[in-house]
């Protein structure tokens, strides 16, 4: 039986309550009759033999690229960059795709007698990965072979000795990248393309760049002009990265791009009910839901967080393609769309969404309020092509506990951003012009980014900018079941129940509004017609 495509359900009297993610927990909500619930397509079948598929992709590259085997030769300088801890979500069960791909690449390199090989975790301004996390992403064998010799590195966007300025694009955008990567004879970038935003020229131009370079597309203006940043042809974020990609290629940097896609089989057996449509829940799903929700009620938040963060996703590879960046990425997008695209008719007055416990920036960490905003208004809101799911001036209702909680190791500048900046203003432009520079250049944050496991000082700003498009588009944002003080600090309105939230929303959108719920999991991208 082939997987069913995405589906838009219209709620009627017989519809069972709808599942909302709610951080480290769930809520069952009865949506008003006539509301729509959007379900993503069911998981696509996985590649039968992923290793063979990888080898095949390396032998049969796309676009203007020779097979990898022929690009490798003894005495060459080879650098393999790979996506960091932010992908995939949740982290996948071993073996990780990165391990499979890099092992295949290293086999070829060994055959060719390449001995100058360096691995770089493409952190951009993300936190460094711990040894455990690297071990998980790359596998024991690679880790043990490279790490002890200092050949397993993590990109340091604040290390002047290992950055090189390649020039400016025709739009005056600086391109400053990891020196080792740029000066290699071949740079291989290994992607996990969880959503449409990932990959393409963004991989190198963002993942291996410095603040000086990133600020050209990680800013309020770019975000306002990326509609959405999940739709690369209408995304200023991507246009900028593509211009940089061109400059990188023109500078003679040879990039061999490897992209992989995943199916949406996101949660392991005990959370199977999450991925099923509620009216199809059988006894086991109900029992699973009851057991987890009851158990979670009694679990202290910190323990619940640890339990959820330990989830390793069973998702499987659905495609792998390698070669020239452009053609590879186009093929990747086809696969992503095949798994995620849902056609929806018309916009909605109110968009509801349940936000999970995880986003790209809190793996093994805490989803702080800024990340809650970013996940809902940055990621979920932007999961569209064409028109946003919610109409202009509409209302977004997000469900998340939004605790006033931070991980001081990973998010030190977030703490200060929340306490010092958001306490003053939530205005994008003002924040950008008044505070960004000070945070970005604060030596203490730079020190923590480089030596500890901290996101860069400027990172919370980017997360806030990620919300720019949504905030300029919608009329109101309501958070259900969140810490009231934290929600207010974000400039949103707290509500204790969904029905309260819907009533509050009516003040903005009028009586009898249309309501649409973006059901997650799985991840999807909507095409609103």
């Amino acid at each position, binding site marked *: 039986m082939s997987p069913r495509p995405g589906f838009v359900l219209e709620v009627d009297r017989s519809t069972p309550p709808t599942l909302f993610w709610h951080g480290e927990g769930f809520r069952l909500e009865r949506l008003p009759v006539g509301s729509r619930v959007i379900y993503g397509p069911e998981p696509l079948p996985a590649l039968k033999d992923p290793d063979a598929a990888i080898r095949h992709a390396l032998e049969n590259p796309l676009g203007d690229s020779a097979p990898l085997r022929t690009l490798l030769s003894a005495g060459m300088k080879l650098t393999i960059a790979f996506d960091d801890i932010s992908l995939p979500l949740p982290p996948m069960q071993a073996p990780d795709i990165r391990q499979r791909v890099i092992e295949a690449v290293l086999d070829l390199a060994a055959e060719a007698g390449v001995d100058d090989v360096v691995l770089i975790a493409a952190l951009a301004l993300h936190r460094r990965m711990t040894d455990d996390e690297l071990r998980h992403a790359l596998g024991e064998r690679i880790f043990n072979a490279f790490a002890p010799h200092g050949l397993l590195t993590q990109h340091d966007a604040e290390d002047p000795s290992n950055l090189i300025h390649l020039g400016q694009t025709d739009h005056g955008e600086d391109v400053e990248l990891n020196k080792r990567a740029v000066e290699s004879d071949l740079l291989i970038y290994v992607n996990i393309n969880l959503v449409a935003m990932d990959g393409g020229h963004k991989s190198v131009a963002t993942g291996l760049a410095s603040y000086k370079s990133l600020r050209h597309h990680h800013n309020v203006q770019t975000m306002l002009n990326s509609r959405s940043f999940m739709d690369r042809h209408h995304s200023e974020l991507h246009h900028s990265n593509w211009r940089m990609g061109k400059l990188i290629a023109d500078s003679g940097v040879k990039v061999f791009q490897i992209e992989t896609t995943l199916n949406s089989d996101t949660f392991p057996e005990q959370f199977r009910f999450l991925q099923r449509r509620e009216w199809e829940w059988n006894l086991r799903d109900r029992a699973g839901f009851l057991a987890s929700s009851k158990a979670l009620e009694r679990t202290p938040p910190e323990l619940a967080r640890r339990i959820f963060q330990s989830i390793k996703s069973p998702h499987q590879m659905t495609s792998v393609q390698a070669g020239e960046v452009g053609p590879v990425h186009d093929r990747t997008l086809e696969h992503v769309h095949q798994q995620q695209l849902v056609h929806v008719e018309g916009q909605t007055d109110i968009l509801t969404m349940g936000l999970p416990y995880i986003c790209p920036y809190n793996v093994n960490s805490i989803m702080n309020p800024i990340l809650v905003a970013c996940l809902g208004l940055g990621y979920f809101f932007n999961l569209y092509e064409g028109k946003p799911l919610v109409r202009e001036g509409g209302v977004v209702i997000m469900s998340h506990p939004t605790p006033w909680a931070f991980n001081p*190791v990973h998010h030190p500048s977030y703490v200060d951003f929340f306490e010092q900046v958001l306490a003053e203003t939530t205005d994008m432009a003002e924040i950008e012009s008044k505070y960004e520079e000070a945070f970005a250049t604060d030596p203490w944050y730079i020190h923590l980014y480089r030596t500890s496991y901290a996101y860069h000082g400027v990172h919370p700003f980017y997360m806030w900018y990620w919300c720019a498009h949504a905030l300029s588009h919608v009329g109101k944002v309501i958070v259900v079941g969140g810490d009231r003080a934290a929600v207010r600090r974000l400039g949103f309105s707290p509500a204790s129940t969904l029905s309260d939230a819907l009533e509050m929303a009516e003040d903005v959108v009028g009586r009898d509004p249309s309501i649409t719920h973006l059901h997650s999991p799985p991840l999807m991208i909507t095409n609103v017609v």
Partner: protein
Amino acid sequence: MPVIAESLAGKRIAVTGATGFLGTAIVERLLRSVPGCEVVVLVRPGQRQSAAERTRREIVRNDCLDRLRRELGDGFDTEIEHRLTAIAGDVSRDGLGLSDDDRTLFASCDIVIHSAATVSFDAPLDGAVEVNLLGPTRVAEAIRAANQGTGRPLPHLVAVSTAYVNSGHKGDAAEELITKARWLAMPDWKAEVAAARRARSDADAASRHPDRLEEFRQRSRSELGAAGTALIADRTEKFRNQWVTDSLVELGRSRARALGWPDAYAFTKSLGERALLETRGDVPVTFVRPSIVESSLSEPRPGWIRGFRMAEPVIISYARGLLSQFPGVPEGTVDVVPVDLVVATIIAVAAKGPDDEGPTVFQIASGARNPLRYGLLVNLTQAWFTEHPLYDSRGQPIVVPKWGFPGRGKVQGQLRRAVKLLSTAEKVLNQLPVRGERAEVVADLEDRRIQAERALDYVELYGAYAETEARFRVDRTIELFESLDANDRERFCFDPAVVDWHHYVLNVHLPSVVEHARVRTHPGKRTLATREERSKKAVLSKEPRLAVFDLENTLIASNVVETYAWLATRHVEPKERARVVTELLAEGPRLLALDRRDRGDFLRSFYRRYDGAPANRLRIDGVELWSDLLALRAFPDGLARVRQHRALGHHTLLITGALDFVVEPLRPLFDEIVAARLGEIDGRFTGEMVTAPPTGEARALLVEEYADRFGLTKAETVAYADSTSDLPMLEAAGLPVAVNPEAKLAAIARRRGWPIEHWGRTKGAPRRQLAVATLRPGLRSSVS
């Protein structure tokens, strides 16, 4: 009789005690209402200010002279220059300590108004004796000495005393010389002087008894904790001095009561009159005895008052809800007289000149002629504060208690019990290891105890005044008043009958008291910056600063034992980890006790555990220690504060007993880090410190040294610390800040107006109960 101004025109009038409440009013009235006279004020030079400087600051600039300033406009300065002369003098010294020039000037005076006195009712006996008892005698002697050989007539000495010299009995107290008061026990004043002086040295000797010294030291320790020898000693000495003073206060009070006076003030004043009568020689003397002098009725303006006097603290304590009982009988008389009436009396007496038949007495009091009933005063006060409540720190109005009229014994009993209860609670809580906001509860308790103690003091001191049953006759004063012409009667009114008590209490006195008390009279947020807010501003000023930080519990909630536990468990198997941690836990109390006793010894002994540890590995581990443990326990507000200082261009300094490689990750925050460093041989630590971090007083010296190095002064130094063991360091800084203070430090900080910061860990940060290193992958394979 000629008009007052005319008779005093061309006269030179000396005034003692001119910087006091009454003295300032006398000087002002002379300058304003007697245009032809010249005023010489006898002022005691301050430690840093000359007599002239004090005169300018404390008399000329006082708001008392505002009216004159307004009336004269540009001519004010010239007028003052021509008519007001300051000479340095001290009534507690023989010969008044006058210089030759000043003595000549003093000798040329026609009238000397002696109003200098120690009006404090709780002054130590010897001080009161020197000023109140011997003062008038000294003034008379100085007059005689200066006058000798000048051929001028002796000036008229108008000695201001108090009606209460005559108060120890019921019924009429007449305006007669103290020597004629039959019912007063009259001890020999010379014997009393000798006894008071001896009492000082006796008390001093008694305060040095070993038991007592030990008691002072204990108290000092319990207040300051482990603040170091120098500070403890300093405090101990302060306690000793305080004890001597307290003994003399107590002695004064009991000696006075034993002889029938309400307090040492009235007692010494009374003996002072007697001594003056005996020693005055030919100096013509007139006594003016006011009762309780309070704010002015109309001159220079209604409600003018200077200093916080007798009734004011009681009234304010009542309005703040702190004093709910005050003894007194409703029908009793509170003998109050507005200051301008007293001043007018004195000037009229001066103008009249001495009585040819010898010294006379003028009393100026209200009780006999126009009594203010205690019941009325209480009712008016309650009504006024109900209508104009004071506000508490949260901007809520304070409801004044309904005042009963209990007996003195009952009130004292209640207050004593309250003080005892509060100090017991305080002692118990002080033993608990609380800090931060909870510690402030203890400080609150201390505040309340101090308030109760103060209330008790008021009751003991002033209780008698609300219960006075003597009626001070004012017949001679009224006679004098009635002899004046209509014009003078209006300009120099001193008939107590003119006072409408209703009006005076409600419209004159209470508004003035409240204005002077600097209390909150409006709801909502305070607009005036508090002392704490001002210091906070000074801490983060754009001026150059040295900001010194302590580490443990100031910036990070961790300690050397925990960091050791983490480092010791990082490279060992799980079973072994458990052993290390269990052992450390078992040792906990002993380590804690050692740390409390002497920080330096504790560190020396504890760091021996690092003997033989691989130095380089620990240095690498130090970096991980930050991410795995310390960052979770760091106070983000604290770290932000350090960076704030740096952003302002301030120098930052960390002083800690922690090991250098442990605090290395904090390097970018500080210009300098002073930490412990272990010796190293062949790549292994020796377990002995080669650089020992300073503790106690040594920290203070270090702070001064660094301030010097940066070219900064003490006033430009900020220090952040959490415990009394850091007290020397905090005191070495002009801008100390108590961070998450333990109870003792919280109390000290509250008292001294130091800013208090509550810095906590990151909200919602993962908690780590035991400081055990996260299991490293390195254990499972070889990563070094």
